[in-house]
């Protein structure tokens, strides 16, 4: 061997040695020194977690009847990781089969809300022969699966829909509000009503399956399985029978009202518009909601498996009067004369009046300034009236005088200057009742501070910053800037009815597990105790009894023929004027006013927008609901053309 070559061969040896050392070093670095990160990548590669949703708990009525349950629907899903070339062909055939378009399927698949490893549903409630076709032609539909899925069902359709609410796929906002990792994209969540407020109980815990998969996403083996835990059942205080009567009475009254001439409109011929209304029935001894109706209504089943765009647009179209709105807690109205309960209590509590205090009702009062004349409905003069009488015939003048007197106190900075507002707040007005349904509004109890604030904000709409006598006079009869929800009105009457306990309205009584064992009891929750001297209560009840039981009572005609001997009843009409609209018709009833210790006591409120006087549309509804509650034959609803007393 040549000497030069020998050296060069040695060099080759050194080069080779260096290269091998590099390989060893790199191997050590990858596998031993710094392997964890890449090893984790291998796990991310091969392990897929598939969620097995838990069946949602049922919603039951007070007697244990199902109002919401689940049904099994046949759902066609597509694996999102389908090869794009195959995809086009499969989609075309699938679109034809499901009666949809390729664009629609594409849209569903590109829905980022669904995790990439969760198959995307493209058809729900697919007919059985379509399923069979897909099953028989498996090879033509790679990545397409037909599988049963639990879909929320409301077997009674729209009944109690505003209380129940509905479910839908969680959105980013809702997900951000929940604890981290509590929900995955695509999970179902209660969007409103009981479905939302009892989400934690109803939801259950979804199961998880960890799968080892290959590069094409095929499952090699199951690594671990966690079974889903079904959600708990929620038993409501709602009684389906009463709910049914309330809803049908409300609907019927609204339909009839629309065919009835509104005689109070003199310059043209017009029927009541009656676009919307609500009914609330409370168990006054516990604060439980026995029925809650809102009309127009909707069918929560339309939300199951994704609501069609058109339906959703219809729900939000002003022409349809927003059927998703639960007017019992989201509608704000002037309560009209039903508010005289509050004014009465304020007068009695401050000693401004006693039950025997009389006023000579000439049909109006005049403050002696421009716009200072306030009159009774229909300008009727009721003569000398005491408190019970004033409530029975609904003398505005009697309460105008109280309002005027309190304004005087206000003007003198006397502590009773805000007596009506204080009493209203004590009875729960101006704040949400805390029923636990989302979207509840708080209403408004106007006072001098409020007026100053709105004037500062919009001087054009509210030219006066001062709290004027007229403001207080209007407030005394439930007019002006006062706003209440039907539920607030019901809880206020409930407080007086039961002797002074203001409850947070209760919707559910207990939560049950799958074997119907009680998980938790939801007891009645008294929120406040209102001082209610027995004399005051008796005088008010006498007035309210008269309103329904006396021939001269504002609702005497509506309740003609009602068996008061066996069913004692008290009530109050309300007619609220709304600028540019027909009157709001309101009626509240207490049945019975003085129950025996083991006898249930109910408060029923009905309110119809643009329904005329309280006795016109609202009172007939309440009569029907009470007949339903106590098991009397139901009276057909007759709407009066226009009563003259509110």
């Amino acid at each position: 061997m040549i000497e030069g070559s020998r050296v060069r061969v040695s060099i080759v040896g050194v080069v080779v040695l260096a290269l091998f050392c590099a390989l060893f070093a790199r191997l050590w670095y990858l596998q031993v020194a710094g392997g964890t990160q890449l090893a984790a990548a291998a796990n991310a590669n091969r392990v897929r977690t598939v969620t097995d949703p838990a069946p949602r708990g049922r919603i039951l009525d007070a007697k244990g009847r199902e109002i919401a349950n689940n049904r099994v629907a046949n759902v066609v899903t597509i694996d999102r990781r389908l090869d794009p070339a195959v995809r086009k062909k499969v989609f075309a055939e699938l679109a034809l089969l499901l009666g949809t378009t390729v664009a629609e399927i594409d849209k569903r698949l590109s829905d980022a809300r669904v995790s990439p490893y969760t198959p995307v549903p493209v058809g729900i409630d697919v007919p059985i022969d379509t399923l069979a076709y897909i099953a028989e032609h498996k090879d033509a539909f790679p990545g397409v699966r037909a599988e049963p899925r639990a879909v929320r069902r409301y077997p009674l359709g729209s009944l109690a829909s505003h209380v129940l609410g509905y479910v839908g796929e969680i959105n980013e906002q809702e997900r951000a509000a929940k604890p981290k990792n509590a929900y995955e994209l695509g999970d179902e969540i209660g969007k409103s009503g009981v479905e939302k407020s009892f989400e934690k109980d109803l939801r259950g815990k979804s199961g998880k399956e960890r799968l080892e998969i290959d590069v094409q996403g095929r499952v090699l083996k199951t690594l671990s399985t966690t079974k889903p835990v079904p959600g708990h059942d929620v038993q409501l205080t709602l009684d389906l029978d009463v709910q049914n009567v309330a809803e049908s009475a409300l609907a019927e009254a609204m339909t009839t009202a629309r065919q009835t001439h509104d005689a109070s409109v003199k310059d043209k011929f017009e029927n009541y518009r009656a676009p919307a209304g609500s009914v609330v029935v409370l168990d006054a001894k516990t604060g439980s909601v026995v029925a809650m109706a809102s009309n127009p209504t909707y069918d929560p089943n339309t939300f199951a498996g994704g609501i069609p765009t058109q339906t959703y647009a219809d729900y939000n179209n002003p022409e349809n009067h927003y059927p998703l709105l639960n007017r019992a807690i989201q509608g704000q109205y002037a309560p009209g004369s039903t508010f005289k309960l509050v004014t009465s209590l304020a007068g009695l509590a401050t000693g401004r009046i006693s039950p025997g205090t009389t006023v000579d009702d000439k049909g109006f009062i005049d403050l002696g300034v421009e716009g200072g004349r306030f009159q009774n409905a229909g300008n009727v003069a009721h003569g000398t009236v005491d408190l019970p009488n004033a409530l029975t015939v609904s003398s505005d003048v009697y309460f105008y005088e109280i309002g005027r007197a309190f304004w005087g106190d206000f003007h003198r900075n006397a502590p009773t200057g805000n007596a009506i507002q204080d009493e209203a707040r004590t009875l729960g007005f101006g704040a949400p009742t805390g029923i636990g349904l989302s979207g509840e509004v708080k209403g408004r109890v106007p006072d001098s501070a409020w007026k100053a604030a709105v004037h500062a904000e919009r001087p054009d709409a509210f030219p006066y910053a001062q709290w004027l006598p007229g403001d207080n006079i209007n407030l005394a009869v439930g007019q002006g800037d006062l706003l209440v929800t039907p539920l607030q009105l019901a809880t206020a009457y409930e407080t007086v009815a039961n002797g002074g306990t203001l409850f947070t309205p209760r919707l559910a009584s207990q939560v049950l597990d799958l074997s119907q064992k009680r998980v938790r009891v939801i007891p009645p929750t008294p929120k406040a105790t209102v001082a209610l001297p027995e004399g005051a209560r008796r005088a008010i009840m006498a007035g309210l009894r008269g309103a329904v039981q006396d021939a001269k009572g504002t609702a005497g005609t509506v309740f003609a023929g009602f068996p008061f001997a066996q069913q004692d009843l008290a009530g109050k009409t309300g007619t609220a004027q709304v600028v540019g609209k027909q009157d709001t018709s309101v009626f509240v009833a207490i049945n019975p006013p003085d129950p025996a210790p083991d006898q249930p006591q109910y408060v029923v409120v009905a309110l119809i927008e643009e329904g005329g006087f309280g006795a016109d549309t609202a009172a007939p509804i309440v009569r029907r609901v009470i007949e339903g509650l106590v098991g009397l034959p139901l009276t057909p609803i007759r709407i009066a053309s226009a009563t003259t007393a509110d």
Partner: protein
Amino acid sequence: MSHRRARLLSTPLRHLDVLLIGATLSISGLGMIMIYSATKARTREEGVSSLYYVNRQGIWIVLGVLTMAAVMAIDYRKLRDLAPIGYLGMVFLLGAVLVPGVGTIAKGSQARFQLGAFQLQPSEFTKFFLILMLAAYCYLHRNDFGLRRVFVAVAICGLPLALVMLQPDLGTALVLGAISFAMLTIGGVRGRYLAILALVVFTGAIGAVNLGVLKQYQVDRLTSFLNQSRDTRGTTYNLDQSKIAIASGGLTGEGLGQGTQTNGRFVPEQHTDFIFTAVGEELGFVGGATLLALFGLVVWRTWRTARLTNDLFGTLVCVGVIAMFTFQIFENVGMTMGIMPITGIPLPFMSYGGSSTIVCFACIGLVANVHMRRFS
């Protein structure tokens, strides 16, 4: 007669390099095991026996060992005389494979002859014949290696290299380049010529990239290792999956047949070019290092033979084989670990494939041949 026969058979065989042959066979055996592991999922999918690829590789190994024996049987100096014939034959086949209809197109290059159920890859065999031819030429002009000879030598290397590039098979072309450079270095080409040659090759490579001689995917693959954190689905997919597989092996591996990357078929071409990832994942650092050590043993024995022999031809042959193995091992294992660009080069004795296996054994045959006849 019996005396002569005894001398003929026993003398060279007495100097048989058992370590070299043993290491080679061990690697082949491990290769078969790993091919089985890497094709388990694949065969299930293809609906063939789970031993399909292993059996075929077994046949190649047997044919390889027979070829090795045949190469060892003839004195390598006789092979030197036959080198030009073999070389010209190979050049002819390399040309023929490019003729449309004669060669088969697979995976984007026209590199194979279809022979029944088997495919012959002339570029693999070119390595063997180029080593012989170049060694013979350098040996012939060992005392007079002027510039003209350098040109001829470069032409000898360049002709098959160009033909392989036309297929195109960049990986094999690089192997041929490495063999050529190493052998010319040892063959007596002066340092400054080597430097110039290196410069020319370097410039040519840059020109090839910039002038579009290389296909875009080739450029991407060659450069992707420089920028490894791009995306797992694009160009770096192979590399990422390959690194993930090796890294998840850890010190002792996930166990034979237990590799999740391997069973899930996350690494493409795992039974051929990426066979090392199966070793890395299932046998861990211990297995990978053992394999590298076995390769080191093969190269060391070859290097030792290169130094032991007194014959420049023998030395050159050994250096050619060293260059070929070392380059293939470093490039192949290096690419699976992300320190070398991805090119289609098989791992000697490990990767599934007939031509490669047979040629590797033939080359070992050359080395063993030089080793056992180094005294004669």
